[in-house]
């Protein structure tokens, strides 16, 4: 992530960015850069802890930070997030405490999800980040139902369903887009296309030219967005969120990114990725692209970049230190939350 790395430059002048994000863009992009560095530091630290056997599992979002951070910053408190696989950083940007997430990764007594789900499956109701399963695509039609609720109560807010490229083949992708278009609901279908469904490339996932083109036949706009360009993601989301909030119906956004790390801590990409993948991915590193642009445009200098990196690592280290060593959930909690409190435990 140093500027000397050769990355594809972000294609903007400062004036372009002013018109896309507003005059306060330097503060906005500095904040975005900080969050992206935090996500990067978190991934690095947690992958190391997983290899040391200190957390049970980890799925990094390295390469997808621009999508997650722009989503966290562009959405408002009344919006709802149905995550796919790699949107944990969205919850943090929306205000979920990093130390709570660390407790979740350690699956301990203070995990807000009480240690039921695998690591990287957080629940953060206070920031309207919905509990996720490991099942592919099911959240897509759920996000539609939530948007129905918003409209039914005439409440503000947009429901965002995230999913990967593989999930576009699922039953609920079809059901969700279809229902939302028929009912004309405030839903954004956000495809985080990192070009790999574990080992299967997008060319083996769809015969369509892009995933976004699918939207048109459901009766909604579909946008293909460079998901490694935080300005592009942010600008696209601002537009779609505003239109959905005005009652102009659902839209689909495909954010094209490059998965820079394995699918998860259980995966070995050398079995299926071409040898030049890592170099291609690195040239689209969203953190390096933003860093380079901010440096060229005088928002960050080398000292600031270094300081932000140090601070991010320190923040992650502090959260890990605060969380690690917390006791495991009490055995009695095994049978709690299966049913509402008046009837917990096994049937009968």
């Amino acid at each position, binding site marked *: 992530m140093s500027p000397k790395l050769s990355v594809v430059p972000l294609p903007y002048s400062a004036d372009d960015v002013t018109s896309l994000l507003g005059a306060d863009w330097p503060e906005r992009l500095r904040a975005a850069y900080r969050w992206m560095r935090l996500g990067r530091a978190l991934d690095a630290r947690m992958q190391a802890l997983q290899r040391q056997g200190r957390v049970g599992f980890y799925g990094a979002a390295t390469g997808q930070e621009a999508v997650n951070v722009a989503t966290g910053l562009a959405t408002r408190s009344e919006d709802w997030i149905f995550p796919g696989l790699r949107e944990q950083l969205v919850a943090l940007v929306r205000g979920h405490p990093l130390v709570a997430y660390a407790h979740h990764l350690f699956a301990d007594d203070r995990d807000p999800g009480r240690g039921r789900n695998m690591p990287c499956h957080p*629940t953060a*109701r206070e920031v309207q980040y919905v509990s996720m*399963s490991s099942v592919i695509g099911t959240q897509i039609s*759920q996000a539609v139902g939530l948007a*129905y609720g918003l409209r039914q109560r005439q409440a503000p807010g947009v429901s965002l369903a995230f999913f990967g490229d593989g999930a576009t083949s699922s039953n609920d992708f079809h*059901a969700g887009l279809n229902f939302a278009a028929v009912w004309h609901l405030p839903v954004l279908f956000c495809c985080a296309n990192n070009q790999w469904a574990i080992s299967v490339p997008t060319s083996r996932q769809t015969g369509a030219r892009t995933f976004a083109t699918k939207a048109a036949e459901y009766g909604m706009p579909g946008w293909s967005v460079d998901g490694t360009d935080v300005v592009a993601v942010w600008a696209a989301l601002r537009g779609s969120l505003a239109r959905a909030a005005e009652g102009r119906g659902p839209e689909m956004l495909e954010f094209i990114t490059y998965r820079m790390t394995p699918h998860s801590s259980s995966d070995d990409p050398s079995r299926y990725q071409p040898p030049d993948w890592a170099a291609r991915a690195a040239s689209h590193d969203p953190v390096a692209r933003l860093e380079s642009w901010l440096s060229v445009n005088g928002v960050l200098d080398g000292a600031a970049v270094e300081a932000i990196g140090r601070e991010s690592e320190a923040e992650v280290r502090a959260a890990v230190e605060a969380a690690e060593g917390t006791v495991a959930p009490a055995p009695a909690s095994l049978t709690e939350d299966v049913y509402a409190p008046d009837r917990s435990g096994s*049937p009968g």
Partner: protein
Amino acid sequence: MGELTLVQAVNRGLAEAMRADPDVVLLGEDIGVNGGVFRATEGLYKEFGESRVVDTPLSETGIVGAAIGMALYGLKPVAEIQFMDFIYPAFDQIVSELAKFRYRSGGQFPCHVVIRTPYGGGIKGGLYHSQSTEAYFCHTAGLKVVVPSTPSDAKGLLLTAIHDEDPVIFLEPKRIYRAVTGEVPDGDHRVPFGQARLVREGSDVSLFAYGAMVPPTVEAAETLAAEGIHAEVIDPRTLVPLDESAIVASVEKTGRAVIVHEAARFCGLGGEIAALLAEKAFYSLKAPIARVTGYDTPFPYALEHVYLPNAEKIAAAARNAVRAS
């Protein structure tokens, strides 16, 4: 009070719940303008409008997925799956999502959805309009599974389901939608979950049956009474939670048990109830536990009458149990 059929009682329960609470929303295929293929939602579209009686596109996973999202937000959705045989596209949403939301979120996201669906044979519906697959859902922790057998219970259990905090699979015995009528209390009549109904008292043998199997089981008990055998008939009404103490107490009294269901035998509810009795009433048993069930075959069209349990088969099993000791 008034005499209603079972499907009219369902309709009455839905209407009263919707009048009492604007958050109750119905969704399903053909339930709006058409009033449902069995007319369970007749008149509701007219009274409550298209935003609360929602005709959905034809996708069960979409129906249940959308219902889950509504419930996460705080609405009280009641989804209809047109036939239980068509519920499987939504199986993933039910067992992976609906049943597990409260648990996996550490209690942050309770997910209260009621899924109504007509089930069971006896209407010449063949393989795909006849099945009784309650065991799939009973096997999944987090769901409650309810099967009324009378109009009064249909309304009372449905209102309890709508006011419950947990997901409920509400199985409606379509064979007796119109074949049984009965008095149904007006107003907020609720039947608690986990309390079996003593249909008929007896001392010689306990017959356990639910849903559409209750009428032939009562008929069998009447036949047996004429022969001097006093059969007790118990309808558990809710399969999860199951009223284990009522089942055990009855067999402690009679010493004999016959379990009736139209679902296939292997891994059906009969196996679970038999295991319960083996664990908790073993020393009271005077005869082997008997099961009268559907066959371990797909549900047949032409031979439906052979497949389904009837009063003769139930009475024969009870006689065998009595003669065994």
